[in-house]
């Protein structure tokens, strides 16, 4: 910014020189007029000595002609003659004469002489104002002579005069800065900022102050200064300078890891277009101001000084603008900075937006390559895998030789791995490895690659990849990891003998290694898998002895111990080992496994009571645990099997009541479904006898007053009715819930059910209300697929297959399709069919048709759709194949009358297209012979076809 550079001082000095030359001129004119010799001269003596008056008049003439060297020489001569005793004309003050000479010397670069003259005036004159003016010239001359340190105290003295205070502080600050007296400069600027009017000079001072604070690394002060400047935008003429300084401040804040301050700085920088516009606006304003001051008739010294200052500021602003224009793509550089600052703050979505804009709108910017790489990370950290992978691909496409690509590809691979997308993870790791990454990264990538293969179940390949890593980096940082990964890959491949050897080898090579405890446990597990129970037990015992009580794997090892004891037909010991294991930390899967094993052993021994009590105790101790539902399931089954349904219901109700009033606890619904099964008798050993309304046995008096709890009780009754095939009562109860409860008090499970209920009742708008409420309030609910599938069905019904496809895909991708996988898959297929995306639709219909678990109407519908897809191709081969699908429907799925009718009709029509008239007639007649179908629309069409064909036949 060069705010306090010497070039800054020079014009200011010239301002003052001009001012003082003006003074000289006035003085000379006054002298001439005083003698009544305006413009005239005095006759000389024989020995020519030009009278002083004439010398002064001549000096004035030169000044007017801007010949300052002549002015200085003449005034020096006058000063010398005065010092030799010659009298000055009446009214002319010798100190003022010296001042005029000093001023002229400043103008011509004779700073030492100017300094000496002005200093002498300061010492000699008693006139305060002249003394201040002289001090000002003295300070300026020193500064211009690069004697900044000497100038500082001169300006400090000058600041004691209130008439010169603001300017003296400003010049003192500038001189101090040049002298390296940063603290003095800052103090002087602070005085200017605190007391001077908030005009252009103030803004210049603030910019300089911020710049100094930045040099000192005082970022809080920098921010404070920038806030001042932003608060007075109209005072700032050098808007581009301010923007550049702000960027520097942001960069300093980023270096200091203060991303918040950095972001605040970067966000306050306008775009280049806006900066140029503001610059031009300010430049015009300065131009007008300068012209206005110049136009003032008889402009005084102050105006002249102001003109110079404005011109200086204008020049500085232009210089800043040219820096801006030299800086390449300014907007791209600001966007990159903002993106990084957002990223550093963890605002990765915002970072992605900013970097994305840079990438899309600044294709030629130098910053684009870095932006691409950072964007990959931003997308990865915001969990958007598709965008991550796409951006990584675009990076290597746009910058094939980028040094950033290996790292970015590794990030993309990691993101794919985090989302369980092993093929993409492996693909991107391989791409990264192909890009010759630096050795440190290469070793990491090799290990990640082996790990990804292991996670993808490609254990043999994982062994090979681990071996490759070990060969490439035999002394690398990850040798132990690679060795153990290779061993584990062999272990899970079922080669237990080899695994035992490799585990032993690992333990020998890394006796205190990070995986030593795990290796000991795996050795026991391998022995167990080989049904060598004695050595397995010995290994477990050795492990338990060697490792502390609080070892993280102790529960797992005890669980294995239980398995070994159970396999050795020692149920009591096995139960003891399992129960001991439960007292240690375990994964949910591990804990569930043990609880199930314990229940299995105890049920086999008909120990119902302790088995049920264990689950009850578990539910009591872990009310929010994922297995509470399992607990209710087992309690219901065990106590029902023991012939005590009331106890089962009472116990399950107790578990359920805990969260019955809270609509956000959606596991309650799964528990209620179990309750309904027990209440309806739809469990092994269950009784069909009624147990009364759930309101009576599920709700306490307090819960009876809570709409959510009441709705849940009715829901249990509705489920009981459904299980007993009493659909009228089920519908009545669901209606009761819909009528009396607003969606915001209903849990996700009920919203989904009510949405389906209203849709089935032909009320799509109310259904949409329930579905939307579900997805808006709990989009990742276990029951969210009810809403997505429902919304998809509504979209299909309203003729919007694109929207339907989005919803069906959300049911699978977002909600996991826990309850509605078939409906969602079939919905996707139907939407694709409606969108005429035949190939994709065909794949899905085939998938449904071949899934035994889904056999039913969905199969009939899918087989029919496969026929339709082929029939549209129109060639005989495809038509024949289509015929096969239609026949499969009316022969194999007769239960589903509507599809049978459609299949008959389309089969007949296909026969006609194949020219097989007789077969077509037979097929139509077949359709019309089925009593269930005679009233259908298809039957009506078949009749018309038949009449036509028979008519044609008789005509022939």
């Amino acid at each position: 910014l060069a705010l306090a550079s010497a070039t800054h001082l020079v014009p200011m000095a010239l301002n003052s020189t001009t001012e003082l030359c003006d003074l000289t001129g006035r003085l000379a004119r006054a002298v001439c007029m005083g003698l009544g010799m305006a413009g005239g001269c005095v006759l000389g003596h024989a020995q020519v000595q030009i009278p002083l008056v004439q010398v002064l008049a001549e000096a004035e003439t030169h000044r007017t002609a801007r010949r300052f060297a002549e002015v200085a020489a003449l005034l020096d001569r006058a000063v010398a003659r005065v010092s030799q005793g010659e009298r000055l004309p009446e009214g002319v003050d010798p100190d003022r004469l010296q001042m005029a000479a000093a001023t002229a010397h400043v103008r011509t670069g004779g700073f030492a002489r100017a300094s000496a003259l002005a200093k002498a005036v300061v010492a000699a004159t008693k006139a305060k104002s002249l003394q201040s003016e002289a001090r000002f010239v003295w300070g300026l001359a020193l500064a211009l002579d690069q004697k900044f340190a000497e100038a500082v105290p001169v300006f400090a003295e000058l600041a004691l005069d209130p008439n010169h205070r603001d300017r003296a502080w400003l010049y003192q600050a500038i001189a101090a800065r040049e002298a390296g007296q940063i603290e003095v400069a800052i103090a002087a600027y602070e005085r200017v900022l605190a007391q001077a009017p908030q005009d252009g000079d103030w803004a210049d001072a603030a910019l300089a102050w911020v710049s100094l604070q930045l040099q000192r690394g005082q970022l809080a002060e920098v921010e404070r200064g920038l806030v001042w400047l932003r608060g007075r935008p109209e005072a700032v003429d050098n808007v581009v300078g301010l923007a550049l300084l702000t960027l520097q401040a942001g960069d300093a804040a980023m270096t200091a890891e203060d991303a918040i301050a950095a972001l605040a700085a970067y966000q306050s920088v306008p775009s280049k277009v806006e900066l140029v516009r503001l610059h031009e606006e300010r430049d015009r304003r300065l131009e007008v101001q300068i012209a206005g001051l110049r136009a003032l008739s008889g402009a005084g010294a102050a105006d002249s000084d102001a003109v110079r200052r404005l011109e200086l500021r204008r020049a500085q602003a232009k210089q800043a603008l040219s820096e801006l224009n030299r800086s390449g793509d300014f907007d791209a550089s600001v966007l990159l900075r903002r993106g990084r600052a957002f990223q550093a703050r963890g605002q990765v979505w915002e970072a992605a937006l900013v970097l994305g804009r840079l990438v899309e709108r600044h294709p030629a910017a130098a910053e684009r390559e870095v932006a691409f790489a950072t964007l990959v990370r931003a997308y990865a950290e915001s969990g958007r895998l598709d965008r991550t992978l796409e951006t990584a691909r675009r990076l290597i496409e746009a910058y094939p030789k980028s040094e950033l690509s290996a790292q970015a590809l590794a990030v993309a691979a990691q993101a794919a791995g985090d989302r369980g997308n092993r093929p993409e993870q492996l693909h991107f790791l391989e791409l990264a490895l192909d890009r010759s990454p630096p050795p440190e990264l290469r070793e990491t990538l090799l290990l990640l690659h082996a790990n990804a293969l292991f996670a993808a179940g490609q254990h043999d390949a994982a062994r090979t990849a681990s071996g490759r890593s070990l060969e490439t980096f035999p002394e690398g940082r990850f040798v132990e990891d690679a060795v153990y990964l290779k061993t584990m890959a062999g272990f899970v491949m079922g080669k237990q003998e080899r695994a035992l050897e490799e585990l032993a080898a690992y333990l020998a090579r890394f006796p205190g290694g990070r995986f030593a405890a795990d290796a000991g446990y795996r050795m026991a597990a391998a022995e167990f898998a080989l049904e060598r129970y004695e050595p397995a037990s010995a290994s477990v015992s050795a492990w338990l002895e060697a490792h502390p009580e609080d070892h993280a794997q102790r529960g797992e090892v005890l669980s294995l111990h239980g398995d070994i004891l159970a396999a050795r037909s020692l149920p009591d010991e096995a139960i003891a080992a399992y129960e001991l294991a439960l007292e240690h930390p375990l994964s949910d899967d591990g804990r569930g496994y043990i609880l199930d094993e314990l229940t299995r052993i105890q049920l086999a021994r008909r120990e119902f009571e302790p088995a049920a009590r264990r689950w009850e105790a578990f539910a009591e101790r872990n009310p929010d645990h994922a297995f509470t539902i399992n607990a209710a399931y087992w309690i219901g089954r065990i106590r029902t099997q023991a012939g005590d349904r009331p106890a089962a219901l009472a116990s399950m109700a107790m578990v359920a009541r805990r969260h019955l009033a809270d609509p956000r606890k959606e596991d309650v619904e799964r528990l209620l479904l179990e309750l309904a099964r027990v209440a309806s008798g739809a469990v092994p050993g269950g009784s069909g006898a009624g147990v009364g309304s759930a309101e009576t046995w599920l709700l306490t008096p307090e819960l009876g007053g809570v709409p959510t709890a009441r709705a849940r009780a009715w829901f249990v009754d509705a489920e009981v009715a459904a299980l007993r095939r009493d659909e009228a009562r089920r519908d009545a109860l669901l209606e009761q819930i819909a009528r009396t409860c607003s969606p915001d008090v209903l849990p996700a499970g009920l919203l989904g059910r009510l949405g389906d209920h209203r849709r089935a009742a032909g009320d799509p708008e109310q259904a949409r209300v329930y579905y939307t409420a579900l997805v808006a309030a709990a989009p990742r609910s276990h029951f969210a697929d009810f809403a997505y599938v429902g919304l998809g069905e509504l979209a299909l019904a309203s003729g919007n297959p694109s929207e339907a496809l989005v919803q069906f895909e959300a049911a699978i991708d977002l909600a996991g399709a826990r309850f509605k996988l078939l409906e969602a898959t079939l919905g996707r297929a139907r939407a694709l069919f409606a969108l005429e995306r035949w190939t994709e639709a065909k794949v899905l219909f085939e998938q449904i048709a071949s899934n035994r678990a889904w056999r039913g109407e969905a199969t009939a519908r899918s087989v029919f759709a496969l026929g339709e897809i082929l029939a549209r191709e129109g060639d005989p081969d495809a038509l024949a194949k289509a015929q096969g699908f239609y026949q499969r429907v009316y022969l194999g799925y007769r239960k589903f009358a509507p599809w049978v009718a459609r299949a008959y009709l389309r089969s007949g029509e296909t026969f006609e297209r194949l020219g097989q008239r007789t077969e077509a007639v037979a097929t139509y007649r077949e359709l019309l012979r089925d009593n269930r179908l005679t009233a259908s629309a298809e039957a009506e069409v078949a009749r018309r076809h038949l009449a036509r064909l028979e008519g044609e036949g008789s005509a022939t």
Partner: protein
Amino acid sequence: MKTGKAGRLGSLPRMDAKGREWRSKAGKPEVRNAARVVSSLWRAGALMLAVLAILWPQGVQAQRYRLRDGRVLEQSAVVVRDGRMVVSLGDGQAGAKGAEMTLPVSLVVELQWPEPEELRRGRAALTAGQAGEALLDADAVASRFAPFSRVPGSWWADAVGLQIRALAAAGRSGETREAAAMLLAADPRADQAAMVRVTVAGIDLSEGKTDAAAAVLTELLRDPVSAEVEIEGALLLGEVHLARLEWEKALEALLRIPAFHGRRVDLMPRVLLGSARAYRGLDDAGRVERTVLELTDRYEDSLQAATAKKEFLP
């Protein structure tokens, strides 16, 4: 061209408001006096000197009409009535007693006019939620500039733009659509047209037509637009996507505000509430918590903070 009065006046286009040549029976341009109609332009010569002052090209600070031939009329000397401009030839003040000359408004090729105060006031009123006040101000400006709706420098389109936004804010959707169609038919500037389309998209959203709103806003925001359009459009598009349960798209729209217009902290409560809902939709509990915390902590007095407390906090 002559520099004398006759020369200047002789160069005046002689058209009526409908663009037809407008002459007296004698075939001369018509000049009227408040007291009597002077049939011959030449007989009004004495008044011409007075009118010279207002017919000579001048600076751009005041409110002026520039005519096709380059001359400029001071607003104070003109009354626009029934599609015509009545120009005072007397002391330069419209309505003052003296001669008048009627000119068709079609002669005006540019308005040199600062932004009317009512527009500034109306915008402020709209921001403050006073749609009725904004509408009054917008109506006043729109009526005043209606005869010059397509003339460069006219504030008509700006006023109608404000009118449209005020009507939308007042929930008068039918009138909003009518006014929007009228403005779009008048071929406004690109930024004005964009803002109108954003406003209409807002009406679409309020009527549940999210498909239409999403399509318009997505297309609008694809390319660079003015900051005002981007801000309004992005907020609205975010809400459209929220209504459509499209969480990722909602975030990408809403977060344009902090990403590119970080100084608009006044909009942050709206952005944060929408973002929290979208993060919830994406099952990003950490970001939901942080966003809600920021909203309830930094903007605790906002309506959105109160909503968030009810919706997200236990």
